[in-house]
């Protein structure tokens, strides 16, 4: 499976739920998820093997398909590269719910089709392994354990289209692709 396939295949359902696999703090630089020495790697197995090494050994093994990440303010601060979320998605993470995002991170992962919800107050309302039910079109995030409901920002229409298409490339391909049936997936990596 190429890096792009890992990061852009699934479309986002209107309502979904998942467990909170980790709660990150504010201004978190996602490159630390795999370690900056590994940000040029697109070997998914390798990225999985180092995922969250600096924080908890065996993290990826505890994550189930469909789990979520929760984060504080300005998640993705710094120069966010793509491999950290390749690792997280390979581990099973399907969405992030954060107080706010660094704009570059938001743009890059939205392109890849990973739903990033803005949900003020979320870090104070969840504990690790809580289950969240997300109804993003209505702007609702519910903590199933506590029953607390938080308001999340309804994403802009274009972002909704990207989520529904499973990423920007599938959307652009649907809108603009050559019509001769040729063409295929191309992995996309990262600059500096």
């Amino acid at each position: 499976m190429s890096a792009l396939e890992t990061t852009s295949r699934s479309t986002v359902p209107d309502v979904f739920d998942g467990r909170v696999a980790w709660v990150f703090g504010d201004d978190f630089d996602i490159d630390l998820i795999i370690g900056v020495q590994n940000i040029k790697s697109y070997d998914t197995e390798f990225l999985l093997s180092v995922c969250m090494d600096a924080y908890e050994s065996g993290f990826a093994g505890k994550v189930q398909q469909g789990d979520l990440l929760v984060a504080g303010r300005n998640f993705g601060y710094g120069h966010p590269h793509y491999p950290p979320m390749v690792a997280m998605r390979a581990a099973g993470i399907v969405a992030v719910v954060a107080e706010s995002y660094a704009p570059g991170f938001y743009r890059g992962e939205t392109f890849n089709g990973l739903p990033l919800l803005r949900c003020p107050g979320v870090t104070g309302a969840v504990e690790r392994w809580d289950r969240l039910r997300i109804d993003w079109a209505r702007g609702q995030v519910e903590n199933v354990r506590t029953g607390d409901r938080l308001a999340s920002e309804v994403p802009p229409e274009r972002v909704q289209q990207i989520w529904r298409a499973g990423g920007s490339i599938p959307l652009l391909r649907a809108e603009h692709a050559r019509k001769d049936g040729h063409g295929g997936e191309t992995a996309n990596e990262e600059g500096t």
Partner: protein
Amino acid sequence: MGMTIAEKILARSGGVERVSPGDNRPFRPDHMIAYDFPGYTDVMFKQMRDDFGIETLDDPDRYVLFVDHMLSHGTAREEEVHAVTREWAQRTGAHYHEGIGIGHQVAAELGFARPGTFVIHFDGHISGLGAFGVLGWGVRRDLIEGWITGQLYLDVPASSRIRLEGEFATGVDSRDLLHHLIAVYGADGFVGQVIEYDGPGARSMSIDRRQSLCGMAMFTGAVSSIFNPDDLSLEYASRVTDRPFEPLSSDPDAEYVRDATVDLTTLDPQVVLPGSARAANTKPVGEVAGTEVQRAFIGSCVSGRIEDIRAAADILRGHRVSDSVELHVVPTSNEIHVRAQAEGLLDALAQAGAHIHRSTCDFCFGYAHPLQPGESSISTGVLNVSGRMGSTEAHIYMGSAYTVAASALTGRITDPREILRAANVGA
């Protein structure tokens, strides 16, 4: 209700009368820039051809490619990477500039930063073009949307205005202002916004300082930063291009999320502790003075311009870099290199023991002369997360060219004002 300069530029690019923060619609950039990097530009070329059937460009003038990374090893692999880019540019007619400096600077020198225009890049440091009244926006992989369709969807950002008063004290520059803003407002203080610098302090600031300030916008949370055009930036733009351009400026009744004032005269040199530029890591130099460093770097897309090199020469002329420090100086472009040579700055720095290199991005991301485990470096690079400039077991402090040069001189993080004062007393 008036519009900000950023809103006016986007309205023009979107072909509409006006835009408001939060609007989501397609915009047509004047230039769409990239530097070549393996797995990035080469993949975009392939994707355009294979997935979208794009072999030629309708308007190649809008496409600009720079070769500024991976210039230091002299390997076949480097040549292979650049050859792919060169061939694509030759075939499509896109602008191609190899090895003449860091693209974010060369774009200005070559007239791609015309006041009132909208420029995108996958790299966020393109925001440095805001010095010229250009909206420069790093859109990451969405660059390919622009390259394929000629336009891209964006949310119109709100703006905040920072009125600058006074002038920088000796030994203080716009890097210190940038880190001061993060210290005060937080690393997400302007998240998703455009910062507009205005006021007498903005107008008295040199172009170099403006570029440095705008080029670091992302670390404040902002998507870009911009100055309203004035005589200085208009004169620069007119000098470097024959193309017509129509500058835009904010209306007096434009709306801002935040309207803040900073007195430049009160700023102290700032040092960023290893890790990231977030507020908790940002300290006045006095709080970290004395920390030993073995490596020092002056360069990058934000801090290797003539004023930075002059600052370093002011500190180091007639002295020697500490025996325990290796100082690398990398002018941001060849044009700057030539000018620094002509002014005698590079000779002064070389005589002080600095290593002078041809312009490249390679030091800033650890490709050239990577840091070794256990080393501490002080740098004018853009990023200091562990591993950015080499070993993950090295420590990267960041500061202005003044602070880096002063620290290289003593071997310890040093307040540059002490060195400059001593020099004045001795003179």
